[in-house]
């Protein structure tokens, strides 16, 4: 069981195909798989559908894959921070499927848990419900949403042992566990790989069963909105 690879390109070797569905972790630029995105850019794979809460910013994160026109369709909840995204979307070059944020997360979690569909009250009576089955439970309407079964998941954690047991750091966890779970194959990048036994088994956030390939690297971790307070205010 060799999970640790030397580079993002090696970890993705043999996994990429034109037209595939990729689930990506991250929220904004927080906890995104920077190194794997760079390697996918270099691979030249195209016509991708990417399920990710956001689409990065111009020139960083998934924005890099938009700049190179490798993405055909995005499944996201919020895409406001990216001018190139908007240009491609408005010109019809890029498809966009809006998902409420919690619905997107649950679609990933469900896919990973072998649940092909679930009913939710999120979006009932809105555009999101159009074309979806409505069913009543206890006199209230719910809509049917489908689980996401991704060909590949790309995610980022803080630390992992060589078997893929991992922990995330603060709000960089976000979509990474559900995205990891819904991939037929999951490739994870971390800041530090440690030996089994180093991480407390009671503190593992995502067990290694969900992680197939693993790389270690250094991350830029760009901040999208730097907000601070002055010391005097304390």
């Amino acid at each position, binding site marked *: 069981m060799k999970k640790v690879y030397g580079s993002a390109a090696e970890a993705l070797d043999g996994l990429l195909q034109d037209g595939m569905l990729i689930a990506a972790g991250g929220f904004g630029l927080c906890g995104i798989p920077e190194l794997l995105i760079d390697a996918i850019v270099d691979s030249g794979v195209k016509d991708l559908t990417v399920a990710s809460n956001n689409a990065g910013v111009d020139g960083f994160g998934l924005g890099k894959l938009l700049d190179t026109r490798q993405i055909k369709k995005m499944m996201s909840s919020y895409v406001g921070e990216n001018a190139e995204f908007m240009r491609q979307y408005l010109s019809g070059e890029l498809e966009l499927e809006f998902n409420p944020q919690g619905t997107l*997360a649950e679609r990933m979690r469900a896919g990973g848990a072998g649940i092909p569909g679930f009913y*939710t009250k999120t979006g009932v009576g809105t555009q999101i419900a159009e074309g979806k089955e409505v069913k009543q439970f206890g006199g209230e309407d719910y809509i049917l949403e489908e689980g996401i079964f991704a060909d590949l998941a790309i995610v980022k954690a803080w630390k992992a042992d060589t078997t893929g047991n991992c922990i995330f750091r*603060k709000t960089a966890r976000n979509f990474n566990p559900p995205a990891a779970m819904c991939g037929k194959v999951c490739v994870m990048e971390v800041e530090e790989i440690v030996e089994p036994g180093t991480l407390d088994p009671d503190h593992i956030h995502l067990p290694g069963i969900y992680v197939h390939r693993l790389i270690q690297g250094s991350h830029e971790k760009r*901040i999208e909105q730097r907000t601070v307070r002055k010391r005097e205010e304390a």
Partner: protein
Amino acid sequence: MAWDRNQMAARAAQELEDGMYVNLGIGIPTLVANYVGDKDITLQSENGMLGMGPFPFEGEEDPDLINAGKQTITELARTSYFDSAMSFGMIRGGKIAAAILGAMEVAENGDLANWMIPGKLVKGMGGAMDLVAGVGRVIVVMDHTNKHGESKVLKECTLPLTGKGVVDRIITNLGVLDVVEGGLRIVECAEGVTEDDLRAATQATIV
């Protein structure tokens, strides 16, 4: 005379009770945190955190610690972190007592529109649809009229909905209104605003 942004936020803070878990939206709702006083309120950030603290001191920003507006923030002694599926599980599951949100339009039946204007740039609904569908109480804080002076408190929303029949209370610069059977009920007028002023600025039915 009417309330300014800070007075609206202060009024909204009165809606919060000791022990509540609350989600605050972007804009005026964010200011509500400044007015909770001694009340024991835990703020949820839907990207995966309960117990959101203030902005960090300069030089102490952590790229792994942001709120749903992607701003750098801090943690508190009570803070916990979790993934997005659990975060929206607690929202959809009704564990969050209240959400305070901005809006473009609210209708007398509680319909809310705050995510898109057809023909204009659409950024997405983010977590707004999940929040209004799931939390215990939805409180809207917004200006009573748009920049053309037209009422944002309507008989029916004209914009695509974020949620149907989801709003419980509306706090505007002119006063406080509740969604009740048959329309809206005036709860309170802002300082210097009369009931007649409020009615005149409101397109929705006031009962």
